[in-house]
């Protein structure tokens, strides 16, 4: 067996060290080693975006990242989005606009949207659709997701354009 590595990563602001094999993806390690099952496995080849997390602030499909690559990196997952005060405006916007049905794609959409609104606090519909093209949803038909993102942008701007 290939030698296991100790990898130290900041996950949702907390430093975590874990043992993993080089062949394990970040997705596998999050779900199986760290018991953080909020990040979902969809296609496992980078097409569907269900496993999207933020790696050093950038949205990535965690199925296409080796966990050993993340030594010293910062990872943010869906588990790190809500605060002790409850859901963020972004999460509430998804709930209240019924932007989900089965929910498997939702953590990925939330993470991508978080990255979008950080980069562009007031995106147009076209910009939203283009940015979220790497996240697939088989239930909603996307329109409600777009509505939710526009609503989230409004809610966040109401709080001084803060994303957090």
């Amino acid at each position: 067996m290939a030698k296991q590595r100790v990898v130290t990563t900041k996950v949702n602001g907390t430093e975590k060290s874990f043992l993993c094999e080089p062949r394990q993806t970040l997705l596998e390690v999050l779900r199986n080693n760290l018991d953080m099952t909020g990040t979902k496995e969809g296609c496992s080849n980078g097409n569907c975006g269900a496993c999207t997390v933020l790696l050093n602030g950038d949205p990535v499909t965690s199925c296409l990242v080796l966990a050993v690559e993340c030594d010293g990196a910062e990872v943010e997952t869906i588990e790190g989005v809500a605060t002790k005060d409850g859901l963020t405006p972004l999460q509430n916007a998804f709930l209240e606009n019924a932007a989900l049905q089965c929910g498997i794609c939702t953590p990925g959409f939330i993470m991508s949207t978080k990255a979008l609104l950080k980069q562009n606090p007031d995106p147009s519909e076209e910009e939203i659709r283009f940015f979220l093209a790497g996240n697939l949803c088989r239930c909603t038909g996307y329109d409600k997701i777009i509505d939710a993102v526009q609503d989230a942008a409004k809610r966040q701007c109401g709080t001084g354009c803060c994303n957090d």
Partner: protein
Amino acid sequence: MREFEFESPDSLAGAIQLLESSKGKPLAGGTDLIDHLRTGRVVTDLVVDIKKIPELNVLEINDEGLRLGAAVSCRKICANAEIKQHYPALIDVCSIIGGIQIQSRASVGGNLCNSGAAADSTPALIALGGVCSVTGSSGTREIPVEEFCTGPSQNVLEPGELVTEIKFPLPVGKSSNHYQRFIPRYEMDIAVVGVGASLTLDDSGENITAARVGLGAVAAKPFLAEKVNEFLIGKSVTEATFSEAGEIAKGLISPIDDHRGTVEFRLQVTSVLVKRVLTEAAKRASEKAT
């Protein structure tokens, strides 16, 4: 996934040594490699992460042009204002390779080394006059991008060699560039036809003084459409000129039938797309100050 060892050297010499001695595979963004390792299309005992090597992360523009490290991600390229100003074709490309998650990881160097016939970046790199620096244990050699790919998923790299960077001359005067592809969807798809073009106009903005057109997905490898380039030099910037250039391009390609498009369709789309891309490149060039 089959087992492999992993190294992440922080020096170019260290990476070359690892790649040469163990037939390891270089890992940049991993958007192709990790998928290929999972499916067994690529089998290796060692993966060498090259993202910690300073030479592969260079992103520098000066009077001579652009030095683009092979491991620089598409997202980083898209965020660079100087690239946007001088090499907008690179932005055109890097903003449509996969979705945003892929762009965060994928590099232009990796796209080139994967050497897909329909790779989006390659026709643009060819149009921009890109030259690859390839380093191995016996030294560094420079290879124009149009000579890099040798067939579908094949290139000139010898075992143990690494593309470290791609250099581009600085477009001067009324000169600009563009890339467009045709896909059946709006985004997240593989090119049916991809066209990159660089045009330089005279001071009046009415005549073409230099041209480079790169074509992708319409032959076994992306290539420089030299006959189109030769035709364009000295011509005036008119719709008729660009239509004729499209017709010439049609005669240079050898497309295949597949589920994305038939030979007939690709022939037709090539002429239309060449015209469109040249029109946009000329528009961008004419808006530049001399």
